[in-house]
């Protein structure tokens, strides 16, 4: 697939309030610092495996900011991919939880040391557990949207996943179930397209010109956007979410993003030079428009880096889960 012609140039003026831009930037920096800390923890032997979202901050942060945060069908559900730390932080979550999961401590708030890094679960914010099996979230997501459709209100369901995963039948199931004439669903279906599935280039595998074309075939409103531009991402997501909230119908977004540290620690987790770095690009624009100075940005980055280093030191000494804890939570009665 060739890249779409992007409507907005990277050098176009920023069309959001300064305050909003700075909040986005702050969260993007925080997310990047978190991911880089996680990678470092892995490299230092403080975790067995890393996977995460450096390169998707420009899209994932606005997504979290725009979510209607809360628990239950009146609020938004997120059936998330494993590169979603930016969204989680934008929801207000403290980054130390992710470090705890990386170090698989008993204190890990998402899985108690059971699951891999990036596998968030926050029932309090309607964030469904991230699943390692690719694409199953697309089969599950219509369910929460059905409940939301029935109970009324403006809560919506959001589902995200990667480009390669769209080859699984569950992606098609999601389109089928979301667009049934008897019951169209309030669901925002998202694919973050980084052009790769581990080592497999998307070019050879996708017959469709755009992944969004597959949604269009179902009569679903669909767009391909530049997910490396936080302003475009914010505006497009806002428009999409408003549509879904009001119309109670599905909407589809394909966001073109980068994979800045390769697939995962299994592929080395080293910075990849030839991909667009959304944070670098955004910072250049912020500087250019005089919203922030290089110094301010460096300070911010350093502050987060230090905070996360401190948090990592703290987590290092926290206990591993008790062996007997394996018997807990097999069933909900054990709660």
């Amino acid at each position, binding site marked *: 697939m060739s890249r779409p012609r992007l409507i907005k140039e990277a050098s176009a003026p920023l069309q959001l309030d300064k305050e909003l831009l700075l909040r986005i930037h702050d969260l993007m920096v925080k997310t990047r610092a978190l991911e880089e800390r996680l990678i470092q923890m892995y490299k230092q032997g403080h975790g067995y495996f890393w996977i995460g979202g450096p390169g998707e901050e420009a899209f994932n942060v606005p997504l979290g900011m725009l979510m209607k945060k809360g628990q239950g069908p009146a609020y938004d559900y997120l059936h998330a991919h494993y590169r979603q730390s930016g969204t989680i932080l934008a929801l207000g979550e403290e980054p130390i939880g992710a470090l705890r999961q990386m170090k698989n401590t008993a204190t890990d708030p998402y899985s108690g040391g059971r699951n891999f890094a990036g596998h968030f679960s*926050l029932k309090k914010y309607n964030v469904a557990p991230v699943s390692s099996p690719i694409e199953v979230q697309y089969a599950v997501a219509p*369910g929460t949207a059905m*409940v939301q459709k029935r109970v009324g209100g403006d809560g919506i369901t959001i589902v995200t996943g990667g480009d390669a995963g769209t080859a699984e039948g569950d992606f098609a199931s999601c389109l089928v179930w979301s667009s049934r004439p008897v019951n169209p669903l309030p669901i925002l279906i998202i694919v973050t397209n980084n052009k790769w599935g581990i080592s497999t280039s998307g070019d050879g595998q996708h017959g469709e010109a755009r992944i969004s074309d597959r949604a269009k075939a179902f009569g679903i409103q669909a767009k391909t956007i530049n997910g490396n531009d936080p302003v475009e991402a914010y505006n497009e997501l806002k428009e999409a979410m408003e549509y879904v909230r009001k119309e109670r119908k599905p909407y589809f977004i394909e966001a073109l993003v980068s994979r800045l540290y390769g697939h995962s620690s299994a592929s080395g987790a080293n910075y990849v030079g030839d991909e667009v770095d959304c944070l670098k690009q955004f910072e250049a624009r912020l500087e250019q428009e005089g919203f922030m100075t290089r110094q301010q940005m460096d300070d911010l980055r350093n502050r987060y880096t230090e905070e996360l280093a401190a948090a990592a030191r703290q987590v290092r000494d926290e206990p591993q889960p008790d062996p007997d804890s394996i018997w807990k939570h097999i069933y909900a009665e054990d*709660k």
Partner: protein
Amino acid sequence: MANMAQAIRMALHYAEENLGVTDIFGEDVGMPLGGVFTCTQGLKTTWNTPLDERGIIGAAMGIAMGGGRPVAEIQFCDYVYNTIDLLKLAGNTCWSTNGDWNMPMVVRTPVGSGIRGSIYHSHSFDATMTHIPGWKVVMPSTPLDAYGLLITACKEQNPVMFLEPKALLRVKGEERIPGEPDDDRQLSKMIDAPLGDRTQWKPQWPTLEAYAVPFGKGKKVREGSQLTVVSYGRTLPLCAKAAAALADEGISAEVIDLRSLWPYDWELIKESVQKTGRVLFVNEDTEVTNFGEHLMRRTVEELFYSLLAPPRLLAGKFLPGIGLADSLEMASVPQQGDITAAMRSLASEQP
């Protein structure tokens, strides 16, 4: 008395009215058909899904996560095998999230042979399902148990697999469902959809009463002293019949209806085997890596020194399918004669 299909329908009605069930769905589950076995006729929260089992299980999970109470149907368990990953996911979500999320969902599906269903309408699912952690798995052999187990299922906080022995769905019970009218024909008039146009039809539900069969509790169907038979589903009534016939030969067999496959009533089995020293496990799933083998393992591990003869398993032959022809189906899964013979032989086995 109601048959099992009617009992299931009544339990679902009860659950819609009293237990907050919000969605009863699956292929052809809603109007006009109400399920290929009539189990969902006339219910108010039914709807027809796309032909997509993965979507059905996924939707059940999502509905459960959104606070609904779903009862999903897989039209035949033969068609559930492309969803095993999702069943595993539903079963591990509570554990994987360290208790953050739970999955109160029920999946119903007809299982087993007995209707000349050929290769793809004769599958059993108990072996595969009992290997998936995090689920509760039940399988009634009477309408009343079906009613009571399904009501318990609809109260559960965890995923429940409700296996319906299809050969027994149209068999009438010997016990009355609490609230069921005295006259069968009256019941049928009230809740069975008419043939032909159903658009104007509405069921008249009897005033059903609460009745819950707890999970993990088996049922002693017949007392006996010389051997124990543990079964469930289609083969259970055959075991009971065999025990009755063997009584005439002077063989005293105790018959246990497990009802709940996971968790199961180990105490009931144990007490019985300690008494009889001989045990036969009967089911119709294929016999390699079969749930009966688990029960047998536990028996051997815990009761070895109480055994007077090796425990035995009578199960489906390890074949790729159950053939359509009568001769093939009969030769593939336990029939009345096989069960009686196995019991007789076990009762008389000497080292």
